[in-house]
């Protein structure tokens, strides 16, 4: 493991002053506009909600409720240390706790709490922190944890754990990631347009927790309206040391390591994290959720999600409750088109395919992408690698994928380490 030098940490303080480059990358067609035409709404309540007890790396949360229990909206239903708490997205009755498809890249089934909503939408008593500006950072972290916050960019790392690490390691700059570099996905863009105040407020809360000086909100260079809405909001006018920075749209610029490199010109040390450089990255949606958790006491039970692609009739963004079946969202968008071929959670680059649309929306779901036959390649026989080197040219981690492929094909697992596998 390489350590960041104090010189590098000093340089990292200059984050955002200049825009740098990262190795490789791809320029992809955005395909975002089709889902940005309508204002974001909540869809009607589905008949049942299926809330998985495993929503991020780590252990399965322990169910806090039993079959037949009546739950209120926002009531904790799953918990485990150090997971982010899981809350009931509706008021209703626990119909069952059983293994179901849980929207996970593995495609496996896992324990889920199935809730039948009663339609009353009765909240538990919310406990906002009235004077968060004076609150102790530990108190804020506890609030964040009890509200079940996790990174909404896709990795779902529990927010309280990341913030605790950042506070202990003298973070000077908080980076809010609004760079949605995957094609099609527009949920963060819509959130930044519609709820800029919440994002800025959340940024201030997080900055207080970290004891950081600066906040950088990174957005893509073609998001002009987003920049206007962020800098025009009332909360922004009241804040200091918050800058909105546009970065060129090259995939995977929204990756944490690439974003750090673009903003600072520095690389996150191998085996390390951005906090080694005094930086903490959070997704803009996480910041908005932090604002709700602190000022309203509202637990994380819903998120902005894009339902898009040539495979749905009317692409758009929804504010969807966790546990909402994907099929319900697609129905609300007018259903599938005739030539739908594949259903993906996430973007076309890194998303994972769903076998069935009964899978639910979870904290990690930023996009439901229905692709038509024209969008994807028909399955073809695999051809041998001729080491053309295109993979190495675009690799942002500067790996040699063609060499890795060769070693794996020849069952040579030991040399992989030499080529960087297992280092990070």
């Amino acid at each position, binding site marked *: 493991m390489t350590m960041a030098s104090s010189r590098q940490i000093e340089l990292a303080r200059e984050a955002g002053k200049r825009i740098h480059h990262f*190795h490789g990358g791809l320029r992809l067609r955005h395909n975002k506009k089709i889902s940005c035409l309508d204002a974001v709404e909540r869809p009607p309540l589905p008949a049942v909600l299926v809330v998985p007890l495993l929503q991020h790396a780590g252990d399965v949360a322990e169910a806090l409720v039993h079959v037949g229990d009546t739950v209120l909206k926002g009531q904790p239903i799953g918990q485990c240390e150090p997971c982010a708490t899981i809350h009931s997205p509706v008021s209703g009755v626990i119909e069952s706790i059983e293994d179901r498809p849980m929207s996970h890249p593995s495609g496996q089934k896992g324990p889920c709490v199935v809730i039948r909503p009663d339609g009353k939408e009765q909240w538990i008593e919310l406990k906002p922190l009235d004077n968060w500006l004076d609150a102790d950072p530990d108190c804020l972290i506890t609030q964040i944890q009890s509200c079940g916050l996790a990174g909404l960019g896709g990795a779902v790392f529990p927010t309280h754990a990341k913030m605790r690490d950042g506070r202990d390691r003298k973070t000077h700059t908080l980076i809010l990631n609004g760079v949605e570099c995957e094609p099609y996905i527009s949920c963060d863009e819509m959130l930044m347009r519609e709820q800029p105040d919440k994002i800025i407020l959340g940024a201030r809360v997080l900055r207080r927790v970290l004891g950081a000086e600066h906040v950088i909100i990174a957005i893509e260079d073609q998001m002009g309206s987003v920049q206007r809405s962020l800098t025009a909001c009332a909360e922004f006018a009241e804040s200091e040391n918050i800058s909105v920075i546009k970065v060129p749209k090259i995939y995977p610029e929204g990756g944490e390591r690439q974003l750090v490199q673009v903003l600072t010109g520095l690389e996150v040390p*191998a085996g390390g994290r951005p906090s080694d450089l005094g930086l903490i990255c959070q997704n803009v949606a996480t910041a908005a959720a932090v604002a709700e958790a602190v000022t309203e006491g509202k637990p994380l039970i819903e998120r902005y999600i894009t339902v898009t692609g040539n495979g749905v009739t009317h692409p758009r963004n929804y504010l969807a409750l966790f546990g909402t079946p994907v099929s319900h969202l697609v129905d609300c968008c007018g259903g599938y088109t005739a030539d739908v071929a594949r259903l993906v959670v996430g973007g076309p680059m890194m998303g994972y395919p769903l*076998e069935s649309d009964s899978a639910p929306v979870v904290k990690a779901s930023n996009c439901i992408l229905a692709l038509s036959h024209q969008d994807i390649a028909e399955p073809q026989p695999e051809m041998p690698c001729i080491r053309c080197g295109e993979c190495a040219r675009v690799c942002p981690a500067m790996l040699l994928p063609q060499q890795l492929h060769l070693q794996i094909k020849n069952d040579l697992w030991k040399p992989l380490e030499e080529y960087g596998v297992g280092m990070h």
Partner: protein
Amino acid sequence: MTRSFQTSGAPHMPPQTTVAKVMLQVLLALIPGVLAYVWFFGPGILVQITLATIFALLFESLMLRWRGRPLKPFINDYSAVVTAVLFALCIPPLAPWWISCVAMLFAIVFAKHLYGGLGQNVFNPAMVAYVVVLISFPQAMTSWLPPVALAEHSLGLADTFVTIFTGKVPVPGGWDAVTQATPLDTLKTGVDAGRMVPEIRNSPLFGDFGGRGWEWIANWFALGGIFLLFKRVINWQVPVAVIGSVLLLSLPFWLLDPDSNPFPLQHVFSGAIVLAAFFIATDPVSGCVSSRGRLIFGAGVGIITLVIRRWGGYPDGIAFAVLLMNMAAPLIDRYTRPRIYGE
């Protein structure tokens, strides 16, 4: 009502390129050079390309069938065609038909499939084929033609066919009437006999830089190579290193002793340096993977070629140079692995 879908790994988009597309672009890029070849040396090269392609596809099909691989995707990847065309461009246009047969046997069966097929060959198949027939059949492989403009008799398509398939030249005087030493040959034997380079260059075989005709073919190959660079089918490092090392290394020799050493541009525009720099040494399968590795690989090809031309027994040595560097490629790769992000 839930619905099921077929699943497949990311990314969920069609591939940007395929092996067949890469190979087709290489073939396309060779067209200007081949046309120039026909212009200067007659239609023999077209017959050789056709013969080599037929034999290559024949051996490719036999080996695929024998190895139990599907025929269609591998025949349609055009890799055997590229090997055949590159080989045909290296041999005398009137070489007998069985040269292609023997050569493609070694290229496709030995150099390619016995090493594991497409993507697995350690050596450039076209160069293996060329070296095998060059060493085995020196007589047939050194009967070169002068440019059409200089020839006593130039052969039409029908006569070319007769020559290639019967081994007899249907004009008065036979072989002696139609063949002539190449510029590189003339240079080597001349220098060995103690004549001076400027004097040797007075022969009508020489043009402005390299051999007459040859230098223009090289230009058209370079044009095709630039197309491949532009299309990102090849990287700049190998051609720049091959040509750069030839220029740099031959310069001091020429400056010190211009009477027995050709000037640097003559080296570049003679023989197969330009063709090799853009089309042969750039083969990704048998070459190096990193930028630094490719520079070393290309420089090695240039240096070894010059060493063979200057001190070796052959007038041109690029095929040997490519094969020797193919051998060194895995080692070069090992020591030139690029730094990984964060290291």
